[in-house]
């Protein structure tokens, strides 16, 4: 009898510990904790270029994560990328003239959506579209622009020298 009791206690302890470990891994190690039983609403934003933005990227306001990117689609009617954002309900007071931009976290970090609040008295509602958007900065474009500018300046200098 004592033998079976020990077995039962051991098995119970093992099962409890095992499920506790799985629960810990699911809730504490992943970023799932935000999405759970949290009321939220949807916004959308149209960008010329979303760069490397990924589904699940954070939406932040003043550096605080207030939501996530739910989907990214391409609208072939006006050739723009549409990002669908899911914002937590407790951050429902976002002025509806706020502007939204895609930033990069650090030099090598992932991209995220940043909302800069405007000054309007009315707020975004579920399903609204954010009108003021700024596309992602594509590093290659920046570099090529810089190089072309540099080359243009050099060329201008040279032609000036030749004229003298």
């Amino acid at each position: 009898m004592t033998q079976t009791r020990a077995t039962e206690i051991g098995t119970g302890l093992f099962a409890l510990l095992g499920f506790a470990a799985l629960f810990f891994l699911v809730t504490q190690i992943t970023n799932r904790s935000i999405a759970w039983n949290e009321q939220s609403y949807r916004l959308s934003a149209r960008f010329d270029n979303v760069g490397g933005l990924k589904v699940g990227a954070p939406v932040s306001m003043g550096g605080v994560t207030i939501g996530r990117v739910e989907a990214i689609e391409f609208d072939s009617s006006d050739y723009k990328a549409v990002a669908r954002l899911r914002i937590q309900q407790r951050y429902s007071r976002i002025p509806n003239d706020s502007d939204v931009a895609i930033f990069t976290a650090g030099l090598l970090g992932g991209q995220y959506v940043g909302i800069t609040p405007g000054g309007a008295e009315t707020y975004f509602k579920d399903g609204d579209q954010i009108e003021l958007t700024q596309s992602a900065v594509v590093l290659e474009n920046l570099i090529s622009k810089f190089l072309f500018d540099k080359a243009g300046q050099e060329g201008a200098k040279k032609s000036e020298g030749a004229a003298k």
Partner: protein
Amino acid sequence: MSLVSEVVDNGRAVLVKSGSFTLFSLRLLRVTPAALRRTRLVVDQVYNTGALSLVIIMLSGLFVGMVLGLQGYDLLQRFGSTESLGVAAGLALLKELGPVVTALLFAGRAGTALTSEIGLMGATDQLSAMEMMAVDPVRRVCAPRFLGGVIAMPLLAGIFSMVGIFGAQLVGVTLMGVDAGQFWSQMRGAVELRDVNQGILKSCVFGLACSAIAVYEGYHAAPTAEGVGRATTRTVVSSSVAVLVLDYMLTAVLL
């Protein structure tokens, strides 16, 4: 000529072995639902394979995590991004090391115990005695052991990963001075539920494979002391190889 016949013989032996393993696995799967109703037997086996493996799993998990902390810190420090240590350790443990090392330890600790136990039952005619009493030994002896292993494996892998992450934190944060907040928040930002599920799925598959191999080898062991010993060795070898091959295939499919 003798070489050719040897190759043919060996090929036939491999075919016979894989065929009998497949048939045995199907038979095992067919009687497993019935074993689920005899909870008493299954609980005993979960205790034998799972609870008794806890110490070795937790100790190994701790040290694997600590080594990950050291090596990861040394590697990341060269790129000036030691804050990503949590991400590296978490993903490595959840997706690879947790399921695989647990399965290898399981094959060594629990698989061998299953094989030698069933093998000795065969050698001492206990299995034949059951058949004489019209009790199916596969249903009464093999199925509960198989099921116990299948249940225990994902839980053990989860415990291994959890302890490992704390081990990495112990070395990375306490010893090496990585910022604790960065360690955890970067890990939370980078690890997705998909990664955890992938690890759990892997350990479930490994549990099925290791338990089936252990039970098969035990049931088909030659009824002598030497036969049981050989069967135990084969369990460890086949389980380890199966785990590593399955791991590659699962990773290729899931990634």
